[in-house]
């Protein structure tokens, strides 16, 4: 790959720096490896002339492809059935509209409102709302483990849980609509985070006490970065049980619950 410099050129062209055959370069290569391995950033990727190497370029594009696919694919019907979720949707028509109109992703469509009344238990202490959000992969990867852990934990504390629902094209705040309709004491939204290039499988849990349409983001508590490389889903389930018990006891969430709970990750 690294050819000799063009003899006609006045300046030395940019070529990959490492030549694995020389000892000095080998030591350099090891130092580079140490930097690259220690860092979560894409360091020590090298270059071809002024541009990234082909490997680094394609790896970047591959990670971006996974992230894009997570945004644009939908949670499978099989998963929704397996978890026994009542399937609802918002007033959003398709993914394009979902991305452009967050306001439409906060309200249920007419059929879903009816279904909610017909099929879901009213006035539970806790209502669980699962949404694809910005990553269906996050739901697929985490909810099958997180949900049973959460349900078991709440049952163990004698906290009543309503009928869990899945809301397609839901934003975080759709839990306000669901919770308000059902008159739940508190609502938990399990929703796919905006995917990064490191992982497309990160899930967030938002919690609100006294769900009401239009309530401020600051009134919500959040547990984010739920995935195998961050907060593993089963541990997240246990953490959520503790937080819900605290919310129910204090009758508050978000900044009303903990003053230092100010840093919110928005969608």
């Amino acid at each position, binding site marked *: 790959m690294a050819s000799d410099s063009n003899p006609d050129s006045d300046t030395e062209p940019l070529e990959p720096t490492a030549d694995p055959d020389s000892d000095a370069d080998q030591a350099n290569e090891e130092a580079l490896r140490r930097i690259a391995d220690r860092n979560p950033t894409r360091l020590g*990727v090298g270059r071809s002339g002024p541009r990234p190497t082909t490997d680094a370029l394609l790896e*970047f594009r591959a990670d971006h492809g996974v992230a894009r696919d997570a945004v644009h694919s939908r949670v499978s019907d099989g998963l929704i059935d397996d978890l026994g979720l009542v399937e609802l949707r918002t007033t959003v028509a398709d993914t394009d509209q979902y991305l452009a109109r967050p306001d439409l992703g906060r309200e249920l469509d007419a059929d879903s409102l009816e279904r909610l009344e017909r099929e879901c238990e009213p006035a539970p202490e806790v209502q669980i709302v699962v949404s694809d959000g910005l990553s269906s992969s996050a739901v697929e990867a985490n909810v099958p483990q997180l949900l049973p852990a959460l349900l078991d934990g709440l049952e163990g504390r004698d906290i009543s849980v309503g009928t869990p629902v899945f809301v397609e094209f839901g934003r975080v705040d759709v839990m306000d609509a669901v919770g308000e309709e059902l008159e739940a004491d508190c609502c938990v939204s399990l929703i796919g985070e905006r*995917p990064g290039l490191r992982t497309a499988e990160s899930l967030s849990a938002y919690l609100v006490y006294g769900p009401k349409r239009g309530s401020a983001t600051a009134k919500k508590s959040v547990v984010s970065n739920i995935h195998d490389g961050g907060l593993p889903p089963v541990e997240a389930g246990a953490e959520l049980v503790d937080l819900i018990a605290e919310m129910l006891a204090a009758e508050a969430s978000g900044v009303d619950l903990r003053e230092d709970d100010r840093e919110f990750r928005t969608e």
Partner: protein
Amino acid sequence: MAVKTTTPDVGDRFDSVVEVLAKANEPKTGDELAGIAADSDAERVAAKRALAGIRLETLRENPVVPADEDEVTRVIQEAVREPIYEEIKDWTVADLREYLVAMGTGEREIAAIRPGLTSEMIAAVTKLMSNLDLALVTSRMEVPARCNTTVGERGTLSFRLQPNDPADDVSNIVDATREGLSYGVGDAVIGVNPVQDSVETTTRILEATHEFIEAWDVPTQNCCLSHVTTQMDAIREGAPADLVFQSLAGTEAGNDEFGVDVDLLDEAHDLAQRRCVSSGPNVMYFETGQGAELSGDAHHGVDQLTLEARCYGLAKRYDPFLVNTVVGFIGPEYLYDGRQVIRAGLEDVFMGQLHGIPMGIDACYTNHMGADQNDIENLAVLLAAAGANYFITVPMGDDVMLNYQSNSYHDAAALWELFDLEPAPAFREWLAEMDLWREGRLTERAGDPTIFT
């Protein structure tokens, strides 16, 4: 539909200056989300026609948010140099466009009218200009600024090195700095976004970057982009900062969402001038971005481009060293895809430079936006051609802390080569001393962070 109003020039199809400005905008999802965009392309062009005939005086006298309700309006109005305004107040917005694009108009001619312009006038003319108009007129403007280095001089293109780390780990931050410097980037600033907004973290980051800059004698400046009050506390306790940073909005209510107001910014500017370790005179750094006001419900029914212009009107008060729009960070509900991001990027840099502020750009996108690396490489080529002062760069374009993508360290050398540009002079000389720069190009050593170990 046809409503006559008392506002002169607006015509009988629209009710107000605010409505004409909003509907004359190129398509943006943020204006649609706010419910103020044109309903059709025909209506959009009708609004552009109406706008073309509006006189600058009408725009001055009808600020999009009334002066008695909004201190940003007052800052903009009070900064107008009246004799120059008097000379141009009867121009229409079309006259202004034609002055800017005329043969023979250069920085001198633009500088001659600049103090008479308000942010609303600048926003208005932007809405009449095509992408190539924007690039052409931007290339005619030269707005340099000086902190430890001078950026924005003709023939130069600078870069912010953004070595963010998801755990604020300073050894990782320094490694990413090493790698960036080895690609020749970092002459605009070594600027770190911390995860944790605390005096302790801010101080740690400022100390680590400052020590590195001193140890290797790098002609640049450091900055930690925590909230301005956090930086002020850190600086008061002795943290070594070259610049003071804050995000700005184009309305008082928007700045309130950011936890700042003009008094606080005045105080920060005053402190920066007295306590920053840099040689100045320009010691402030601001970031902006279309849509910030709507996302904070502080937009007053005004379109996102006009509010963005007002950010620059506010920034100008503080003679900043760096101002950049973080154009594609906000998401698809404000700028939907690569096309909208590219348009907004051209608009923002043009508007900043026409305000007379030294403007750069974070050409960036998130993963839920209809854009990819090719789109922002396109934008970088356009704005390097147009003469933006600087770009943001991160390792391989991937910021693992802020979870978005921007230009790569690699892009600097490609843009210098494409347009025959160079880093800021003092930094370029330092690169040459480090054997990283020779005869207008990076050398074979480039790209190896172990040089700085």
